[in-house]
């Protein structure tokens, strides 16, 4: 990677110092924001493979109970619990967060605001190292006596607190430690993102000239920072319950298990928006570029997102309607939850209005961005059933809930990530991805995705509860029709996973011998497209850019070209 550029940079600015880390150390000990972004990206993708493998194993067990799963073997009930627990934890904390926020935040923020790096490069490196440690601890938790934690990713006590109940004494403590370290890593990273955006913008870049994806990653970081604190306190209490035998969550000793649910969901619900905002930001940037049209309502979009963020702090108890909370409280939380669909609908309309009258190009990233909107909408609409406490009493803890949040998280973490990855791949690696393979991969992912989760909606409405190892033990859930639906879901998952090989093949071949991308293959406006692909150390060796206009000046009537880069003087 850009050896010459690095040495040039050193000659200019650091001639009096030691050289930076060389050889393999360059990749693991670098403070360059792009390298740290790659570390996060590849670690996240590695964890995604593990999380997907877990899904494959337990989906096989659910559709074909007792089968010896190829590549895994027989699944015991304890292993099943550990698999579903860690699938959830991994996909949210070790895939969605590191890829959407840490990887793209690190990669895009300095490049898009015209800075040479993050404001605190060494804290950035520390953030990744702590994150890596959390990954290793989580993976290690599978190999301790008792196996990985099996108390569900929400870790409700007393199941999570008492070793006799969850049977994974060591595994649950390691899981908790891993999650806590992961939080520390993202707090460090988040502080970096926020201060970088606030303080290190290129000369001339005013608040409303910042690309929305940068704003959204930073708003997400603030949201994370303000919501995770109570859960950190709660995790310390849970750890003491597990390790020392205190009774914070034990009603027999004056504690209260519902307290954990409050602390968890006070974080857990904003967390949905923490990963949603970067995905929406990516979508809006991709859509503006490929609709060749200015974003409709930049400020509206920004303020709506801030409003969603604020509102997201007041909806958490809709996860607890049947946990024994006061019904009057349930009324309040129903109202706030249904209210939050207003700003989200507004975001959808803004995106549709941006598309309207545009000159749309159906490139692979554009397809992903449009699919994000379509699929997320289904997730949002089904959420209304769950936000209303009356309907939720029936749907609670069924596959309806499961299908609903997969219809939100899959578009966010997978579709949004693929939109970003295919859009910025030319910038990251200097070469274009193969568009045909990209489209095959797109359809091969999105169609099976719907065939996985639509049957699960039906099963959920039919009363199928979550977190059950083998439905043959429940005669009313073991009918032939229900098994057919389960098999459709599992087979669709296999198809979807098979199509991911197309993606990996496309990545490797495009990276090795794809068409050279040049500086600005998409004719986009934002600053990252004004430097080399991939950008050298320091990002703009010939001097950092100045900014003269907003990021979405596409199709300006007075110009011959349909784009107008932010750094071009008027």
């Amino acid at each position, binding site marked *: 990677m850009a050896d010459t550029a690095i040495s040039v940079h050193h000659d200019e*600015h*650091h001639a009096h*110092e*030691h050289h930076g880390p060389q050889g393999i150390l360059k990749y693991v000990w670098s*403070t360059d924001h792009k390298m740290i972004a790659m570390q996060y990206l590849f670690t996240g993708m590695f964890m995604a493979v593990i999380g997907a493998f877990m899904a494959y194993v337990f989906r096989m067990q659910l559709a074909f109970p007792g089968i010896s799963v190829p590549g895994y073997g027989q699944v015991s009930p304890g292993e099943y619990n550990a698999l579903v627990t860690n699938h959830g934890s991994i996909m949210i904390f070790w895939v969605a967060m590191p890829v959407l926020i840490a990887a793209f935040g690190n990669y895009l923020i*300095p490049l898009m605001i015209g*800075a*040479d*790096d*993050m*404001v*605190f*490069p*060494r804290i950035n490196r520390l953030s990744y190292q702590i994150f890596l440690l959390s990954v290793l601890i989580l993976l290690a938790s599978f190999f301790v006596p008792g196996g990985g934690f099996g108390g569900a990713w929400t870790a409700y006590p007393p199941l999570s607190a008492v070793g006799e109940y969850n049977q994974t004494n060591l595994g649950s403590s390691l899981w908790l430690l891993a999650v806590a370290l992961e939080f520390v890593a993202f*707090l460090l990273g*988040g*502080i*970096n993102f*926020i*201060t*970088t955006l*606030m*303080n*290190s*913008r290129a000369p001339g*870049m005013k608040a409303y000239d910042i690309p929305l994806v940068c704003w959204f990653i930073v708003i997400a970081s603030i949201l994370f*920072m*303000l*919501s*995770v*604190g*109570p*859960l*950190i*306190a*709660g995790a*310390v*209490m849970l750890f*003491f319950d597990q390790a*020392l*035998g*205190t*009774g*914070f969550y034990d009603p027999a*000793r*004056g*504690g*209260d298990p519902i*307290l954990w649910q409050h*602390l968890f969901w*006070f974080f857990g619900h904003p967390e949905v928006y923490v990963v949603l905002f970067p995905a929406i930001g990516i979508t809006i940037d991709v859509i503006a570029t490929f609709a060749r049209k200015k974003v409709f309502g930049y400020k509206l979009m920004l303020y709506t997102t801030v409003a969603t963020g604020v509102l997201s702090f007041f909806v958490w108890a809709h996860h607890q309607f049947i946990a024994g909370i006061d019904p009057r409280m349930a009324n309040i939380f129903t109202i706030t939850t249904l209210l939050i669909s207003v700003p989200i609908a507004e975001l959808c309309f803004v995106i549709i209005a941006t598309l309207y009258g545009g000159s749309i190009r159906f490139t692979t990233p554009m397809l992903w961005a449009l699919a994000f909107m379509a699929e997320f909408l289904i997730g949002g609409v089904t959420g209304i059933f769950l936000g209303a406490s009356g309907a939720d009493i029936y749907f609670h803890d069924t596959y309806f809930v499961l299908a609903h949040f997969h219809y939100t998280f899959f578009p966010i973490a997978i579709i949004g990530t693929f939109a970003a990855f295919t859009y910025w791949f030319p910038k990251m690696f200097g070469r274009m991805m193969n568009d045909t393979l990209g489209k095959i991969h797109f359809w091969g992912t999105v169609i099976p995705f719907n065939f996985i989760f639509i049957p699960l909606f039906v099963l959920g409405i039919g009363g199928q509860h979550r977190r059950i190892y083998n439905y043959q033990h429940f005669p009313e859930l073991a009918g032939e029709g229900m098994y057919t639906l389960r098999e459709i879901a599992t087979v669709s998952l296999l198809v979807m996973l098979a199509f991911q090989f197309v993606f990996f093949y496309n990545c490797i071949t495009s990276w090795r011998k794809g068409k050279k991308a040049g500086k600005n293959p998409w004719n986009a406006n934002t600053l990252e497209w004004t430097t080399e692909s991939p950008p050298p150390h*320091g990002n703009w060796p010939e001097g*950092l850019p100045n900014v003269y206009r907003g990021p979405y000046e596409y199709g300006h009537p007075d110009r011959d070209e349909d784009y107008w880069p932010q750094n071009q003087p008027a």
Partner: protein
Amino acid sequence: MAFAKPLATLRSSTGIPTGRLAIWWVLASEVVIFGGLLGSYLMFRLGHPEWADAAAVTNVWIGAFNTFVLLTSSFTAVLGHQAAERGDGKQAAKFLFMTIGGAATFIMVKSYEWTTEILHGYTITANGFWAFYYTAAGLHAMHVIAGAVIMGFIAVDAWRGRELQRVELIGIYWHFVDVVWIFLFPLLYIAK
């Protein structure tokens, strides 16, 4: 290994130095951690009037002495900041070392206090009050220790006239540690 700051660190679009901006965001994240813990404690405390009996056992005089020590150490941190503003690194370092002395006193007094309480059977598992007592004060004590260690590094740098702006930053953090204790002391010791 020497490390050159990127230009990004030296920019200041808001007009606030980057370090100061960052430390306030660190404090924001800390406020919600302690906020969650103390909020939970308050909810429990209101629901369990009998915890007052346990709270009555705590030693208000020791707590008051520690409050005095911590407030004084905050004062020396301010004096250190003043000295750093004047560019007098040696003086700033002296005041920071005094602050570290205050932190050490605080921790020693706390160790004595906890030892006495544990020997009398008031351990973390004794009941809900003691669980919160040790968790909240322990989390705070960890912040005191971490702050004192970082302050040590900053003081050594300041003594050599380097990175004087950091004296202010650690001072801001130290006031926060102080403020947390101002909440803990009445909640854990005085409220009966």
